[in-house]
């Protein structure tokens, strides 16, 4: 295998460096913005909080934003890696398979029609919506003798995305929502969130991330195919169910706190495989770290691309994601002919 990091010490070192970069990105995300803040002040606001305006901004606006970007990016990347493994489709990811759009629609519709409000309700709705759409797309993509083919499942995902996005828009327009809210539920954004938002979904997402690491060994075997895995004594149904629960918690949770953000779930797993190969025990932790870094970096970039205006981070990831997507589709297109 010609991946970049081959030996275990190299991979461990890479992961440590990755975690360090992630921390730097979190601090940078807090520091840079319309009003730049000194690094020193950031540290002080947590160690010696003095109630000043700057400290308040850090603790109520900048820090939650950074934390949300980090965990949403990690969650989407890990969910993408698991989905690509389970469906054996290199383009699988929460956004392309409609899961993000479905989760967003459930939240939008429930708040419009049933007066659902509050952050924990949003998180729950996100989970339900993600689970429902994932099941729907999986069933649709598996219709037919040849089972789950990359083409069918991708088309099913694309059409469900169009379906749920259109319905969400209809609901938002009839409900007289503001343009900012509409945009938020369409492209995803991490701006203007508070700590309570982060707290509403982070515990589930954290648990799901840990759960994914436990699954890693079993995912390695499942990658050899259902028959081989069963032949070696694996209860493949349990592994798939476990992975499905983890994916739903990760994707649903990230939508409920950051909206439907595209392409992180495609880009990062591929970058990770290039770095450390295909052993899930390495790829999943790498995905978590690199996913967090990507979304944080995209979010910082989104503040400067049209300074002083901000662009939602979902727009940034979509634009960054296309070259990757094209590359992967060209590779994958060849492999499946």
């Amino acid at each position: 295998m010609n991946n970049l990091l081959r030996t275990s010490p190299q991979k461990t070192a890479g992961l440590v460096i990755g975690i360090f970069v992630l921390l730097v990105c979190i601090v940078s995300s807090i520091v840079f913005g319309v009003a730049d803040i000194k690094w020193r002040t950031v540290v002080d606001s947590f160690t010696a909080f003095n109630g000043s305006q700057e400290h308040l901004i850090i603790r109520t606006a900048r820090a939650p934003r950074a934390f949300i970007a980090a965990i949403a990016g990690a969650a989407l990347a890990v969910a993408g890696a698991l989905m690509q493994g389970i469906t054996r489709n290199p383009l699988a990811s929460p956004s392309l398979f409609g899961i993000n759009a479905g989760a967003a629609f459930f939240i939008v519709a429930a708040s419009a029609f049933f007066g659902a409000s509050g952050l924990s309700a949003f998180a729950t709705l996100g989970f339900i919506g993600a689970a429902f759409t994932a099941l729907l797309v999986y069933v649709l993509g598996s219709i037919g003798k040849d089972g789950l083919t990359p083409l069918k499942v991708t088309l099913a995902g694309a059409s469900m995305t169009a379906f749920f996005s259109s319905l969400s828009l209809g609901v938002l327009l009839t409900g007289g929502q503001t343009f900012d809210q509409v945009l938020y539920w369409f492209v995803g954004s991490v701006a203007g969130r508070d700590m309570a938002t982060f707290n509403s979904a982070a515990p589930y997402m954290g648990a799901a991330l840990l759960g994914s690491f436990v699954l890693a060994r079993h995912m390695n075997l499942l990658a050899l195919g259902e028959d081989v895995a069963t032949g070696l004594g694996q209860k493949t149904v349990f592994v798939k169910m476990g992975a499905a629960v983890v994916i739903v918690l990760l994707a649903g949770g990230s939508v409920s706190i950051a909206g439907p953000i595209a392409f992180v779930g495609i880009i990062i797993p591929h970058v990770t495989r290039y770095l450390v190969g295909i052993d899930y025990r390495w790829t999943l932790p790498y995905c978590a770290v690199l996913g967090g870094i990507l979304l944080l970096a995209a979010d910082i970039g989104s503040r400067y691309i049209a300074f002083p205006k901000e662009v939602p981070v979902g727009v940034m990831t979509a634009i960054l994601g296309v070259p990757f997507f094209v590359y992967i589709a060209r590779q994958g297109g060849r492999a499946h002919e």
Partner: protein
Amino acid sequence: MKGASRVSAIQADKLTLSYGKKPIFSDLDLRIPEGRITVFIGSNGCGKSTLLRSLARLLKPEQGTVLLGGSEIAKLSGKEIARRLAILPQGPLAPEGLTVHQLVKQGRYPYQSFLQQWSREDEAMVNKALQATGMDELAGRSIDSLSGGQRQRAWIAMTLAQNTSTILLDEPTTFLDMAHQIEILDLLFDLNERENRTVAMVLHDINLACRYAHHIVAVKAGAVYAEGAPEEIVDEKLIREVFGMECQVTRDPILGTPLVIPYGKGRKVTARE
């Protein structure tokens, strides 16, 4: 114990299985003799692959039981079965970039747990499997960079690492050229000779089946048409009934096993003096 009344490695009693509404086989009884090579032959779609897969619990029969060394397979846990019986499905596909060593290591899955992930025994069995298949030199290579024959040897190495007394293989020689087919079958033959492992497989080539099998099971329309040693059961009538083809059966000039030569058309060449 190589006696006349052999113990069966796998025994199927009154097996019934259907695909949707279409019955594949019903009330089928079968014994796979221990320590021998058994080969299933039959025309396309006769149910031989389905049969092999249900013997390996990849398919669940609607009725009947499969006994693995005397115990009912449905009552054993997945890992218990995997420690006694290995199955190599047809045309397995390794993910891009997987190395031979990584693949063979997966054969130890049934012996591992969350805390016990890489014991001394695991390592020894993996090395032994790599040596037995002649793959130790190629262990660091990725599967997709190998030739078809090497790839199949890598997969067989994985089933060997499983350290089971019985190995089932579904058409292990499909898509291989003749030299590689012989290479794979010789490997399985040696494994049976040296380590007394029970081998049962589906093969398409009748002549190769006759050459390597101690025991042949001819399957026709979801039922066992005949079973026994090739030299005892393979004749013109069997080929006609099972494959719907006219032929002449002679002896292999090298090994003396039955050799099936189809009638049908072709150029005629008269031997010159």
